[in-house]
């Protein structure tokens, strides 16, 4: 593979790499006869991003520059850190960079980024290739019924109201209202969290089509990253989603040169707590009572969780399939973990509640330790009382 990218487009590529860096730690590169694809997957395998640069994005493009016989393009995985290194400061990159050349060195197995800068400076980055396989996520787009197109500004402004500690957002969409709110874990003390909810009128969006009413929850970190990407390139954003459990796809494209897909897995919100969270007029006292009741009946709650989680398992998205090795390490594992954690914390809560009723006695020191030096505390010590084997014999008498 060998390609040249003109100066203004280098900035776009730099922005892309920076956005992808907020998703995953590894970058997959793949070249096909008419495009280059960059993909990444986050560590929890719940977010995926794919950006496709078409041939017209480049000033020179040859997808199999070195390989003469086989018609296969490049497939490789590099560390995101080294990719970032080549695109250190994307904001003023277009002022300095005249041309970027990316090529594969088949002998040393390195990917080479040659950056030609102003002042005749040439920066060459030799990036090691970690792996030679491709990765692809399975998701559907264009077939889904719910689609929203808008400028990223609406979301950026809405997210500005959220707390920095929020890590997930819930979108509740039906044909005449669009609500975005922070997701609150059912185990958190409701008196200590701030709930934010923003209602956006469907008329604010450029286009708004909702097939089925749905509530989806996804991570905020990746959402912010892709909004930043859309903002940097000032391009509109398209959301495509189905129902809870199916992934939500964000699309940013500028017609002919490139197309970016950001896929986030969605999870089902705990309907009980979310419903109660909308009644924000209730007094603090009442909320406390609520928590109290919940923790006093852990068995009932557990049952409820079990039902809920088994639903999760069916509904959560099976996003990713590797082409080379099919790894079915899906969200199931994570859900099981979550399950264990939630039930665990429930029982701890329960224990604490019991402790409140019965004042525990102060802990007494363990007898075990005392017994080691037991003989010291006896009234007299008689060496003859030790019988049996002599463990260490007397040393030679002088």
């Amino acid at each position: 593979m060998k390609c040249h990218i003109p100066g203004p487009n280098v900035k776009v590529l730099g922005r892309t790499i920076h956005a992808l860096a907020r998703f995953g730690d590894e970058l997959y590169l793949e070249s096909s006869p008419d495009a280059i694809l960059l993909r990444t997957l986050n560590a929890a395998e719940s977010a995926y991003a794919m950006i496709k640069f078409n041939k017209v994005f480049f000033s020179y493009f040859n997808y199999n520059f070195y390989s003469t016989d086989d018609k296969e393009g490049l497939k490789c995985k590099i560390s995101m850190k080294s990719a970032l290194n080549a695109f250190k400061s994307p904001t003023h990159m277009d002022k300095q960079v005249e041309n970027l050349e990316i090529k594969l060195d088949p002998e040393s197995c390195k990917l080479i980024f040659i950056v030609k800068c102003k002042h005749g400076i040439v920066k060459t980055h030799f990036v090691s290739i970690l792996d030679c396989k491709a990765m692809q996520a399975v998701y559907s787009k264009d077939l889904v019924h719910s689609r929203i197109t808008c400028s990223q500004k609406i979301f950026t402004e809405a997210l500005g109201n959220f707390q920095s500690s929020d890590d997930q957002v819930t979108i509740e969409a039906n044909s005449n209202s669009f609500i975005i709110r922070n997701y609150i874990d059912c185990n958190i003390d409701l008196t200590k969290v701030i709930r934010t909810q923003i209602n956006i009128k469907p008329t604010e969006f450029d286009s708004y089509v909702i097939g089925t009413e749905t509530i989806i929850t996804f991570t905020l970190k990746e959402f912010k990253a892709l909004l930043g990407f859309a903002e940097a390139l000032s391009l509109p954003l398209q959301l495509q989603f189905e129902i809870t459990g199916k992934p939500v796809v964000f699309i940013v494209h500028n017609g002919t040169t490139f197309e970016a897909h950001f896929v986030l897995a969605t999870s089902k919100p705990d309907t009980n707590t979310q419903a109660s969270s909308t009644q924000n007029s209730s007094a603090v006292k009442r909320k406390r009572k609520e928590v109290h009741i919940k923790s006093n009946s852990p068995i009932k709650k557990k049952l409820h969780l079990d039902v809920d989680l088994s639903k999760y398992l069916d509904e959560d998205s099976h996003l990713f399939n590797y082409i080379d090795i099919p790894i079915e390490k899906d969200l199931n594992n994570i859900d099981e973990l979550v399950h264990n954690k939630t039930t665990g914390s429930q029982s701890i809560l329960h224990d604490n509640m019991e402790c409140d009723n019965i004042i525990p006695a102060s802990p007494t020191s363990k007898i075990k330790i005392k017994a080691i030096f037991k003989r010291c505390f006896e009234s007299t010590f008689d060496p003859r009382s030790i019988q049996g084997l002599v463990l260490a014999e007397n040393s030679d008498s002088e």
Partner: protein
Amino acid sequence: MDSGKTLCSLIKAIQFQECAVFCAMQEGLKLTVEEGKCVQASAYIPADNFNEYHVRDDVDVMFKISIAVLTECLNIFGSAEESSLKMYYRCEGSPLLLVLQPQSFSNVMTDCEISTQTAESVLELRDEDTEEVAKLVLKAPAFLSLLVDMEKTCDIIEINLSPEHPNVSIVTYGMQDRSCIDMPKSSDMVQSFNCEKSVTLKYQLQHIRLIMKALAVSSKVVLRCSSNGLLLLQLKLEKEDQRQMFSEFYIVPLLDD
């Protein structure tokens, strides 16, 4: 001195150790800091920067002073305020006296006394016998942007200078990757280039990064490599009134195993 601001920014640029050796000579003031006998940085303020400058020539005026305290005192009216500065020092053991007067208020004055310590000897890294093998004059802002873009996690920086193209090449080694910056002598940022035969020198990137603060306030940098590998960087800071202040960095090379 009419304004202590430039002086303050120059002193801050070499602030990577707590204490500096303050040395007043007939030619000017010099503050020197050392980092583990590998890097020696000095700020040099020629006497013509001062409106009035008197130093006794029969004794060595040399003492140790805390840089943090000195910069704080120079900045006592805030960084936005220009203030005139007077410095006094009587004899060994006596404090350094600073009198600062802001230009916008007429009746305010600060009198700072900074206690001093007896100076230890300063490393003499320069060896008169070794010859200079290469000299390179670069624009400081451009050189700074190169250093900023370098990966922080790299340990070693290799500087290759040669009379053939590309004349300057800087290689950094990271965990698994290698980056290389080539710069021909025809480049705009290279103002002069003297090199008879090619040399390869290795330094700790961490040491080179110490000059970044000084580069940010300077306009020009001169790199001098001597035959024993010692790198001397001389940075020129140009003030609005055409007068100049300098900072100097001696960096000891890494030796091949």
